[in-house]
């Protein structure tokens, strides 16, 4: 049977969605992937103050992994990332469950929990620094109340300073995670909950066995947001400790910034950026995989 050729208008209709999508694709291709490629090249180059294109092979990577600060940065990221994501999830979920108990002032409380997300650490950095400073902050205030032996000097303590970063980071994002979980909780069919209650499930069992397993999508999106924030966290560290005491709270983001822009060792900075990108990819790609496979029913 002869199939008449589709008209120009029909072809246009066919192409239109792709045309609409193409500016985005072009922008992303250049300004995300192109730049990643550029950085990759820089990481193999002798760039110092500004990009330069002399090829030096893996020198920058070798140098990078010999640097103790990089070691510290990686270790800190592991500690920070684990605690930050873990605590945010647990706290966010707990708060969401508590808030889901038909609380009277829910709107107000939710806003209070959520607002830190609105503030950058350029804004709250000084307040946090003061609050954590034993001389003027929490320690001195509590001691002023009469609890003389109270100590809270983590920010001055090389071994503990990274945990103060966790405290502030959790402060900023746990409300957002709470909102994500709350949305997940509200999305659960209430009939299932009634059914479980009729079955005699205790409140605890109800959440553990029925509710939390259904929050998997919320967990996933919270995890992705948290993971990329953990790896990208820069403002926070700069505002609170600027990497100190010593280099105790250096993280890859501050390391990369400092080598690229302050120390004029752009090649090493680019190498560290590559490692960060690989880490991000290792976290994100499996997520994207699972996310995007599903729609192909």
């Amino acid at each position: 049977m002869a199939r008449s050729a589709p008209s120009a208008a029909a072809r246009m209709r066919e192409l239109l969605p792709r045309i609409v999508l193409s500016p985005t694709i072009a922008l992303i291709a250049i300004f995300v992937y192109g730049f990643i490629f550029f950085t990759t090249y820089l990481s193999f180059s002798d760039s110092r103050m500004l990009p330069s294109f002399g090829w030096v092979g893996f020198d920058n990577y070798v140098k990078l992994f010999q640097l103790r600060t990089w070691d510290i940065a990686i270790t800190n990221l592991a500690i920070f990332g684990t605690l930050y994501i873990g605590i945010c999830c647990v706290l966010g979920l707990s708060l969401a469950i508590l808030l889901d108990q038909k609380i009277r002032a829910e709107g107000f409380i939710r806003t209070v929990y959520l607002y830190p997300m609105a503030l950058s650490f350029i804004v709250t950095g000084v307040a946090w620094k003061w609050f954590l400073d034993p001389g003027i902050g929490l320690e001195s205030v509590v001691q002023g109340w009469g609890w003389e032996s109270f100590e809270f000097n983590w920010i001055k303590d090389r071994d503990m300073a990274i945990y103060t970063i966790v405290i502030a980071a959790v402060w900023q994002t746990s409300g957002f995670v709470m909102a994500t979980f709350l949305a997940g909780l509200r999305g659960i069919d209430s009939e299932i909950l009634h059914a479980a209650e009729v079955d005699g499930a205790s409140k605890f069992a109800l959440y553990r066995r029925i509710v939390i397993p259904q929050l998997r999508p919320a967990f996933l999106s919270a995890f992705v947001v948290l993971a990329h924030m953990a790896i990208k966290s820069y403002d926070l560290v700069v505002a609170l400790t600027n990497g100190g005491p010593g280099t105790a709270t250096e993280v890859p983001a501050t390391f990369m910034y400092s080598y690229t822009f302050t120390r004029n060792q752009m090649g090493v900075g680019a190498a560290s950026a590559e490692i960060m990108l690989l880490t991000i990819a290792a976290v994100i790609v499996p997520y994207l995989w699972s996310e995007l496979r599903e729609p192909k029913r």
Partner: protein
Amino acid sequence: MKYKMMSRLMASAALVCAGASAQAADVEVLHWWTAGGEAAALNVLKEDLSTKGVGWEDMPVAGGGGEAAQTTLKARVASGNPPTAAQLLGMQVREWAQEGALGDLTQAAEAGGWADVVPGALKDFAMYDGKWVAVPVNIHRPNWLWINAAIFEENGLTPPTTWEEFNTVAQTLKDKGITPLAHGGQPWQDATVFDDVVLGIGGADFYRKAIIEADMDALGSDTMVQVFDQMRTLRGFVDDNFSGRDWNLATAMVLNGEAAMQLMGDWAKGEIIRADMVPGEDILCVAAPGTEGSYLFNTDFFAAFDVSDDNRDAQMELASAVMSPSFQEAFNLVKGSIPARTDVSPEKFDACGQKAMKDIVEAEGNGSLLGSLAHGHGQTSAVQRAIFDVVTEHFNSDMSSQDAVEELQIAVESAAM
């Protein structure tokens, strides 16, 4: 009003005579003097330029002692849209000049006779390849020791002139329950102290060899071990809360008697004056122990970037205005530093300023006018920060001096590569 018109006319006439394009463009200045007195002092420059028909486009980016401004500068240069002038420290001037990003001010320099009035050590940074590429705005001296006079008087102490004396004085104070040294644990502050100790213990030649020339033997020498020993000793004279503290909070400790001394540059004077105290009287200023006769300097330059021809005249105007004695005097009176030209009268400066102006002449004479490592006049950014790493790490941990010296050598070697 009439006068202003006249002067503007004359200025443009002068430009026409000079054969330059009469169109006076604006100058865009990237700097990190963003707040308080220093920013207001810069306004003097702006006003001055506006009388010459040159507009001022202000591009302040503060943070990390110019680190944020450096990032901005790189972005601006990379985008092919550099500012007319940018505030830079000495080493940064040299690094940008090496990248070929800077313009040429020689014409203005010759007209103004700058070569005769600017100290040689500064000229080394302001000139590259025989051309003037930047103009110095001020000379800071980081190697000051600030002393709370009342505390010393009460305890019958005299200002220490060597590190040994310092240790004795400090121990006495510590025994009496007074924090001897106010200090803020930030890398640049640690390095400021380190500078003083290297210079005080090793002397000017050692400082030049170890810091400025990054000589491996000097860096690995016993003298360097002694320097780190002294750093360890100093650690004992600092209160427990020092880490991360801003320098001005440390100064405040000296001002309100919580601590007796601080090793800090002359910008601390601003805090002293604001607390209604008199530098040189209530708060004594002496050279850091063992550095009397030497002068570490820290100069802010306005580097001229390679801009289009239209802007070049305005750029020259800016440079000339910066170098004018009246601006140098007015600005540095506010800033706490001393003028970058030697022919400004010390009359209006306070006791500490006058001492600095006297000391710098002496130091230049005996070859001990040296660039400060902590403030970007000792080493390239890479090496400088590598040394910061070791100094800070050592100061904040229980690393042995021997280990620190080894680390220092490795760090400098790897960063210099």
